[in-house]
């Protein structure tokens, strides 16, 4: 029986120090609530009382906002508390995902450089969805508050891998700028 207990470094979890350098800062943020709502777009917004869901490359603002994942799905950050399940009156499905997704903030002038090492992001090409593949991991990436401040959501089970990737990318950015 192979004992692999030492093969993988222990997971640190969400409580971890930020990655910081002069051009970049990466940190895990806490949210009160993340709610997945599926249904016709307008109905999704109605139930969470938000005027729009941010798509790419729009900038989300404030602490209570929604991002658009696909034609009929949004993720609401710190929105109202809603019951899980089918809302017959509103015609939407709701799932609390507060525990499912980690939220990481990436800011600084090299933020986009870091993200571009993992994902094909073009700020000149609009997309209705903020869903991206970040080196094979499904993530949601969008701007928050400013053009150099980004937020990325992903499944908590991928935190260790995505954080290690980000650390490796940060080293590459430093090396690239050094040369």
């Amino acid at each position: 029986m192979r004992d692999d207990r030492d093969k993988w470094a222990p997971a640190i979890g969400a409580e971890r120090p930020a990655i910081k350098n002069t051009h970049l800062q990466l940190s895990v943020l806490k949210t009160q609530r993340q709610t997945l709502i599926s249904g016709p777009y307008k109905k999704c917004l109605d139930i969470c009382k938000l005027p729009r869901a941010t798509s790419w490359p729009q900038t989300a603002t404030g602490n209570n906002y929604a991002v658009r994942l696909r034609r009929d799905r949004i993720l609401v950050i710190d929105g109202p508390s809603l019951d899980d399940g089918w809302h017959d009156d509103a015609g939407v499905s709701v799932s609390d995902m507060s525990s499912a997704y980690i939220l990481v903030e990436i800011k600084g002038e090299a933020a986009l450089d870091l993200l571009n090492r993992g994902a094909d992001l073009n700020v000149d090409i609009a997309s209705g969805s903020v869903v991206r593949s970040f080196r094979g991991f499904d993530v949601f990436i969008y701007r928050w508050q400013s053009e150099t401040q980004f937020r990325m959501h992903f499944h908590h089970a991928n935190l260790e891998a995505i954080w290690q990737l980000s650390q490796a990318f940060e080293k590459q950015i430093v090396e690239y700028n050094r040369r």
Partner: protein
Amino acid sequence: MSGFRVQNRGLIDRHKTLSFQFDGKSCTGHPGDTLASALLANGIKIMGRSFKYHRPRGVWGAWFDDSNAIFNISLGAIQLPNCPAATTYLEDGMQARSVNTFPSARFDIKGVLDWFSPFLPAGFYYKTFMRPNWHLFEPTIRKMAGLGKLDGNIIEEYQSDQIHQSCDLLIVGAGPAGLAAALSASQKGSSVVLVDDHDIAGGSSYQQQSNIENKPASLWIRDQIAAIAGNGGRILLSTTAYGIYDHNLVALIQDSGFGHAPRLWRMRAKRILIATGAIDRQITFANNDRPGIMSAVGALEFLGRYGVLVGKKIALLSNNSHTQNTANLLREAGAEVETFDTGDNSPVAIGGKKLRALNIDGKSHSCDVILASGGLTPVVHLWRHGGGRLEWNEAIQAFIPAQATTGMRAAGAANGIYELDEALADARAAALDQPSPKVQSAYQIKALLPDINSKKRQWIDFQHDVTVKDIELAARENYSSVEHLKRYTTLGMASDQGKTSNMAGLAVMASLQNRTISEVGTTTFRPPFVPVPFELYRGVKRQQLFNPPKRLALEAEHRNVGAAMGEYGGWLRPAWYGDDDPHNTIRKEVISARTHVAIIDASPLGKIEIMGPDAEKFINFVFYNTLTTLKPGKIRYALMLSERGIVYDDAVITRVDQNRFIISCSSSHVEGVNNALEGWRQDGNDPDRIFVHDTTQNWATITLSGPKAGELLSKLDMSIDLSPDAFPHMTFRQADFLSVPARISRVSFTGDPSYEISVPTLHASALWSAIAKAGKSVQAAFIGVEALSILRAEKGYIIVGKDTDGETMPHDIGFSQPRLRKESAFVGDRALHTHAANGQNRRQLVGLMVKGNECKIVTGAHLIDQSGSKPRSIGYVTSSYDSPTLAHPIALALLENGTARIGESVAVWNQGDIRQATIASACFYDKGGGLLNA
């Protein structure tokens, strides 16, 4: 050939001298030299050997169009194999060795193979080494084959940087056309990226030594670069575009210097302009592979960039109007040049390792170099990668870009326009997406067809020793399609990728078949255009970042109690707990689970929610079992099939309310099941009435399993009536745990009473602590996946993908009823009624038992039928364990007609021995199922 350095020519830094060795011989060069140019300057002409016959090879071209000189290079502690000499810049202290030669390129023992060449034509290997057995010959042939060798040392910090970028216009090639295009586009405000594989922009301008738009070339280039940069354009030098993929994704490799990993740019361009120039087409004539025979364009490149004149007495064999200019430039540099027309009959190169003369019409013309120019040929490889079509241009005797995919243009020489001013106008128009101006070309060329009747050997592919006779043989054996020809003869394979051999090969095939080259067509060029190291694709995906597993929210808690974490279905999960002998530990965990209660982290189990008014109809269609009859609060086991009726996954399905179901599928199948559900949702359904949410990672699940599971659950104070009548097997309850919502499912995959308790993952730690604390009073034990697997096998609960395979249908594992009775349509229905699905000898799930104290059968062992003259496999063992509960080994197997054979004995081919096992029911534990309902 005796190359030498020419004063006042080239871009090299003559103030500094670099020392290096080639095949053990000391040489010198200058910064800016490539290994090939430095060797030529040192008078070294033989730089490699051909792959098959080990014939001596010199360089053919001065850049990517040379596939003859390939080196293993060491510099300090770094050694890299398969470096092209013509594109590797010289560094001080380099030690280069020609690949696949011994002891050197000049004196290679395996050169004797050439004596046997009459017996080794194309296809020889396929025909000869089939009998008696390829594997007899394979080791020797593999030893002889191959190019460079790895030294096995790891280069620290050798890690590729990989970046996604985008631009409005990507221009490939920073020659005059590329520079002009980049400036035009950048002036209009486009975001422009201009890439060139050299470390200095200018392209072919260094060959010609002429003015560009009334300015010296170097000044013109400098001005263009400054203006492009001033307009915000980016210029990436030492960067090769080696592939164009879907949606205008262009792969760029940026050289970072010897020993440093190259950078990969994944450039997404709205438009792509190919300005890659043109290379010389080779001429097919007798002995045309001798060292010292090279392209005329290559000779000008060596002169213009590196200040190297490739010979003193040059025979220039050509069929086009560029000859005179080439001859003049070489004469100005000090060479004696004699020109010859390819129309003259039967040229023959005279000489061996040293070229002595060119014979034409029986007359010998002494020379040390033959420059062969069969006509300029646009570099259209990237054009084809991008899906562009080619058309044959009779006037220039070459394939040129024709119909393009959206957003792709070609300009300048790559577009078949060889006059400088016309090329610049063409490039500027292309940059602005305007129509190309009409061009009156002064370039003249005569059609070039080989002498296919010559009895002397004429080379087509220098790297692989493909000759005209090999192509004749291929045509005779009906490998006449260019794609078949390529594979039969290896023409244009490996690093050449058709750059030099393609046109020559097509011309031979055209002559043989009395067709035009246009009718023969060309092979499909595929990425990479130049060889790229594997590291380019690896980048940071190494060690712990190579396929990293998902991590449990409770990992720290597991490690705190000694879990040996292992990879299971994409997750890092506890295999067992403790530091003692694993087998004993796992055995104890199983016994604890059967006698007291086990605590299992089952968080990876799927929790995919199906919601909406049509959820019931949808889920009934997607799953094999009937689910319309499932009442809210109830749970049902169900199978998901592929359209071929094969078991894809199993799940327990909870109906929460009328419009909401939770699918708890296998841990490793969550993404697959979710994708399948999303796919079927869009197929014939109203997508506004069904929604699929994968909430797996929102919920942590801890399973309590064993006779005392209910007792332990009761200690958590969740205010649930746990009596069997109030909370029976296969039912579901919602409750609160420390004021957060909790879900409790009474299901089992051990065979004992079990409860799955799920809370939001953020509260998993609190639940774990509470269970661990309460568990002490009931002798609860943490158990890992290994013990769980044994518990499942004892009960006959399958693991899909382990106890099933790509042919297993539901009735093979005991689920026959829906196939016979379910009235509504479901995925896989039709496949379950085919002849194959109803065959008598389908492999069915059974149990196996061995006698007394015999050791267990290994997983994978074949069950065999010995009644015939040869043993025949009739199934195999899918799972096998020493059962701590039953105190004897057990196994599950898929066996032909297995259920009808229960009680019989079957022979098992077990690690070289034949053993006997008794076929049994797949369920070994609590066959009546009474414990589940206790």
